[in-house]
């Protein structure tokens, strides 16, 4: 192939439309323009991720290039339906823009909209193509800060795309910073209608002894693309406790990079994906143990029906200095249909010699004997199946300590099940 053509402007890597949008908005986008220019360079070169990229072997976002996403409208005309949430202060984003009028910021948390005072953060890596795209085009987001020693309780971060009539793309940029000894629970809920791209980047910094509980309910509309990339850093005795429930979107990717930089830090990355139709759900994690005596736990459950496809990629990196690391990773899939598929790629990269690291994966169907046992006790077939699916999920769901958040996720799963029945 002609080399100059391959590198020329006609190169079809899906970046063109987004680069054009960036060029059109340049000068009006908030924040440091050199950061955006570097991201635009990176994104323009690599384009949308495809299966040719090792980190995207099972998930292609090239479909995003074919969709002609537009800018969100700047004004929101009517009060949207928020949907079910929990009794906690809330921050509302519509089409990627923070809505102070619909939000009730909590005491104990300083909330600064990205649009007002943009902070790109030091963790997000523009070598990740979707993070580069976000960095190039981010307009708004919420920046949360909890001062040292403050237990700020729980807050809900609600992202809505309520219109459904025009295909839109938004790239919110969030950050969560906990000072030493601070505590915060963030429940993120994403919902929407119609065709849209929600491409969020979050930086989470957990200082010494701080505890960030980060629970996500991804319940986007059936035609949505959802990409969520989190970069977390955990200092000594800090805890980052994350759970993601993937129910919605046509194509979804939750990518979490968690780096343990101080001794006795702890990371939990648990999650569940319940997919049907032709949905594609990808959970990708990279846990980097840079310091000794840290632990990481990952339990991922996939419930896959119809022709859906689940992906789990999990990498655990243990640096030479990170002795006494205790890492655990388990990915399990329940296939409810012969046409559903799970792809699993665990990777351990261990450079220290005194560590405990294990990973495992299982794939199975509902157990016919257990099903018969339940039915023989009078439980109708559909209800018996739902009970066994819930039981399968229990190991990942039970550790969610926030009762209301867990109850909300369990109801969302029940609704998912009812829609299918």
């Amino acid at each position: 192939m002609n080399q100059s053509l391959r590198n020329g402007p006609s190169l079809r890597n899906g970046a063109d439309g987004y680069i054009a949008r960036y060029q059109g908005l340049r000068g009006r986008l908030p924040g440091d323009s050199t950061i955006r220019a570097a991201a635009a360079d990176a994104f323009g070169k690599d384009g949308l991720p495809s299966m040719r990229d090792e980190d995207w072997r099972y998930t292609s976002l090239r479909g995003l290039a074919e969709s002609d996403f537009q800018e969100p409208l700047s004004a929101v005309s009517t009060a949207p339906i928020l949907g079910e949430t929990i009794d906690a202060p809330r921050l509302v984003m519509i089409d990627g823009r923070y809505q102070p009028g619909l939000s009730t910021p909590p005491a104990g948390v300083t909330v600064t909209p990205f649009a007002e005072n943009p902070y790109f953060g030091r963790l997000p890596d523009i070598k990740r193509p979707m993070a580069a795209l976000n960095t190039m085009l981010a307009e708004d987001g919420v920046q949360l800060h909890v001062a040292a020693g403050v237990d700020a309780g729980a807050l809900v971060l609600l992202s809505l795309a309520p219109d459904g009539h025009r295909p839109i793309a938004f790239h919110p940029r969030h950050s969560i910073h906990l000072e030493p000894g601070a505590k915060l629970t963030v429940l993120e809920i994403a919902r929407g209608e119609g065709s849209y791209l929600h491409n969020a980047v979050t930086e989470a910094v957990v200082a010494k002894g701080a505890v960030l509980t980060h629970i996500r309910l991804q319940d986007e509309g059936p035609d949505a693309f959802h990409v969520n990339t989190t970069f977390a850093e955990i200092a000594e005795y800090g805890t980052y406790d994350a759970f993601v429930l993937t129910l919605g979107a046509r194509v979804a990717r939750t990518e979490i990079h968690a780096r343990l930089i101080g001794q006795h830090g702890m990371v939990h990355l648990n999650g569940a994906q319940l997919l049907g139709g032709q949905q594609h759900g990808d959970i990708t994690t990279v846990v980097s143990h840079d310091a000794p005596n840290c632990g990481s736990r990952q339990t991922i459950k996939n419930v896959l029906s119809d022709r859906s496809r689940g992906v789990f990629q999990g990498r655990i990196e243990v640096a030479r200095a990170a002795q006494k690391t205790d890492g655990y990773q388990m990915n399990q899939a329940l296939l409810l249909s012969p046409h559903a598929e799970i792809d699993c790629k665990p990777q351990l990269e261990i450079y220290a010699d005194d560590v405990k690291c294990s990973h495992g994966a299982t794939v199975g169907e509902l157990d016919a004997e257990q099903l018969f046992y339940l039915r023989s006790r009078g439980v109708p077939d559909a209800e018996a199946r739902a009970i066994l699916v819930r039981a399968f999920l229990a190991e990942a769901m039970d550790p969610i300590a926030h009762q209301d958040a867990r109850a909300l996720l369990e109801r969302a799963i029940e609704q998912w099940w009812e829609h299918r029945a």
Partner: protein
Amino acid sequence: MLSINNLEARIEQKQILRGLSLELPAGQVHAVMGPNGSGKSTLGYVLAGHEGYEVTGGTATFNDEDLLAMEPEARAAAGLFLAFQAPLELPGVNNANFLRTALNAIRRARGEAELDAVGFLRLARAESKRLAMPDDMLKRNVNVGFSGGEKKRNEVLQMAILRPKLAILDETDSGLDIDALRIVADGVNALRSPDFSALVITHHQRLLDHLVPDRVHVLSQGRIIRSGGPELARELEANGYAGVVADAA
């Protein structure tokens, strides 16, 4: 109550039941005894509706309804209960929730009001106490980490709560010590009434000392080859199956 006529069934390609006939009138307890591989457990599974078994001939009616045409859950709602020889473990399913879900599914199917959590717990605690079961068995996952005896008692607890019209006990006595055996027998005896029948599948006379049957049937190679009163069980205990089987052959 239960009328089985010339029942034939197979699993995969293996014929197990070969023309089994049995009449169990309302209010009676019948024992089914027989050597290993004679088809005792198959009989229980077929009557409860296990999909792994294919009925190739014959009929089974339960209070004049065609049992074999019903889904397993419909059989349960109609009042049939199978106590499993090897009760299944259900990790992630709380025992109390399991029991309440089952009870309310059956009540719903019968057009009765569902029992709320408080009402159910009162019932479940009372019944588990009668069966000398520790309270925490309700809080644990169904049969997970239960001893063999606890699993069997959990089956009897389910029976006590679901109050079937027809109970099929598939070797519920195996693996039980004398005390547990008495408790299980008492659990069944407590249900005895003119509207309750039980089919007790067992290897041994032992259980039948506490749970005296009206009739005893001997099953061999998929058919009932002899029936008699309670004395037949004692005869089998003393002489083994060989004689009976040889007589029938």
